[in-house]
């Protein structure tokens, strides 16, 4: 398996560089792989996803780093060159397809827009392709004649996926693709992704705050905290043997996928303000295992296995810390003590 996307030290700044929503993020996606990008809300994962798509909101811009897709640095491209690659090379599945689909056009027209305007297909070819796509995501082609509001939530999401797949992009970025859906529908949509992955070899970044989605869908996972990726590796490895205290904490906040015995214990405190992040490790103020060095020096990425790394000064001790982290009492009072 080769690397499809490599993000190195990417930083996105708001408000004239005073605030970094993403501050030196690193991650990689393998061809045909599915990377889960997880983290609490506000950790910068959506900004990172949008930065990759090149549609940052007004006032935000990439200040450093690179994002190589198949070897081409997207950051360095001119806006026009970059726009030329959009949707052909990398496409996007939004959180709520309701607001992401233009309400005044039928799905067929929205398909045509992408397929004809961007894909250069003829109208007939586009319509045929649209039928294929709808079938691929499990929608009846007759629904192409409908307006977005006529779809149910799950169907809309699948329609959005179909749209994203239209030009056979190398990479799909899905931002919380199932968050807005109820549990049963979530499963259907996830299954759609799954089959696309196995049948079509889809490469994707699944942005989510839900570990279970990652567990269900992804082969790789990147954990983000306060604008940085703190742990990155194969899904099994990261979920079963988290090496960053933050990941360990996150695992506590979700029910165990196999058993229901674990106590749910959220990490106390809240992420640091991005306008004034703490020096050193950004998780240190909430970390029960923090040491003096953690508040001083930015932890480097330390490899656990060749394809699994964590940005923590105490990575080597991870195996020892893991059992302690399972105990909810470990986390209690940490945030207040350091605040």
């Amino acid at each position, binding site marked *: 398996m080769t690397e499809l996307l490599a993000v190195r030290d990417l930083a996105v700044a708001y408000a004239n560089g005073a605030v970094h929503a993403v501050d030196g993020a690193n991650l990689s996606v393998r061809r045909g792989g599915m990377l889960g990008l997880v983290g609490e809300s506000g950790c910068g994962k959506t900004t990172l996803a949008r930065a990759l798509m090149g549609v940052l909101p007004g006032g935000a811009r990439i200040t450093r780093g690179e994002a190589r897709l198949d070897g081409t640095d997207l950051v360095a491209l001119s806006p026009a060159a970059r*726009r030329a690659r*959009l949707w052909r090379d990398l496409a996007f599945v939004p959180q709520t397809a309701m607001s992401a689909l233009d309400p*005044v056009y039928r799905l067929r027209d929205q398909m045509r*827009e992408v397929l004809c*305007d*961007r894909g250069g297909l003829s109208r007939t070819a586009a319509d045929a392709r649209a039928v294929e796509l709808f079938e691929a995501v499990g929608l009846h082609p007759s629904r192409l004649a409908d*307006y977005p*509001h006529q779809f149910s939530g799950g169907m809309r999401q699948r329609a959005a996926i179909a749209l994203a797949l239209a030009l056979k992009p190398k990479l799909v970025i899905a931002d919380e693709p199932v968050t807005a859906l109820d549990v049963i529908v979530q499963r259907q949509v996830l299954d759609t992704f799954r089959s696309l992955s196995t049948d079509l070899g889809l490469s994707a970044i699944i942005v989510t705050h839900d570990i279970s989605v990652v567990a269900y869908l992804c082969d790789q996972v990147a954990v983000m905290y306060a604008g940085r990726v703190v742990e990155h590796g194969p899904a099994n490895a990261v979920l079963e043997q988290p090496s960053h205290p933050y990941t360990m904490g996150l695992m506590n906040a979700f029910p165990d996928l196999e058993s229901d015995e674990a106590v749910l214990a959220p990490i106390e405190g809240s992420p640091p303000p991005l306008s004034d992040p703490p020096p050193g490790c950004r998780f240190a103020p909430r970390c029960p295992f923090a040491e003096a060095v953690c508040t001083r020096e930015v932890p480097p990425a330390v490899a656990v296995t060749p394809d699994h790394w964590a940005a923590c000064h105490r990575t080597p001790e991870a195996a020892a810390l893991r059992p302690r982290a399972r105990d909810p009492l470990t986390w209690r009072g940490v945030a207040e003590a350091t605040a």
Partner: protein
Amino acid sequence: MPYLIRRLLQMAFVLWAVATIVFLMFRLMPGDPSAAFIDPTFTVEQQQAVRAQFGLDRPLPQQYLIYLGNLLHGEFGLSFRQRQPVLGMVLEVLPNTLLLTLTALLIAYAFGTLLGALMAWKRGGRFEAISVPLVLTTRAAPEFWVGMVMLAIFAFGLGWLPSGGANVAGAQYASEWDRILSLDYLRHLALPALTLAIYLQGLPALLMRSSMLEVMREEFVTMARMKGLPERTIMLRHAARNALLPLVTAFALGFGQSVGGNVVVENVFSWPGLGRLLAEAIANSDYPLAQCAFLLIALVLVLMNFLADLLYGLLDPRVAHGRG
């Protein structure tokens, strides 16, 4: 469709209410109420005939029923001044008013929509900083004053366009349609329509701007960017298209309001329309004519309000399919 029926009932209610208000206004005004319907030069017999026709010799509630009955039969009485059925006089000038309004609104909305879209697109820049106060100024300027300036410049000064009326003197046409479709009519229409449009364009411009700004924050616009569509396509096909919805409604509403609001411009340009007829009727104390003109203006307004609601439903697929 129950909504349609409900809305129709509402319209009927409003029409009835407006007719009632008109009745009360013209009957309960200070002084002798029958003066409103009896020309002072009528003979005694004539006066009695009119009293009987409008039931002015009966108690007010009964008068009211007769009045409503007359309205339903399209019986609006004779003009004091010209002794002709007022309905005919009013209907004769109605096309002129409708055409003036329509032309002005089309110009205003074409221009205003574009301007509003541009203001939203180029928001925060110098263009917006200049155009917003400018647009507000056009809305703050009294129409008659703008009309006078237009007259001074284009009719008297440069002599490009005629200064009043709807047709050149003595022009003869085979039919009303030929008259309206003539170049001559268009030339006469230009100045009043332009004056009105200068005033009217402010609303679509400001509405389009805020509507666009709102739409531009929508996720589907961002998505369109992600799709690599050119900015112009995004603005036109997605942002503007969606932002247009409230404008269509505003157009219909504006049409209804403008038919009444034309009074001033029609008077400045001697445009033979409803507004001028109303103003003249009032000035001449020709109450039957004034009442009929007022009722017709109100009818157009109410119909347009109704149409605006329907259009809103038709054009926004979300509403059309009963989401709300």
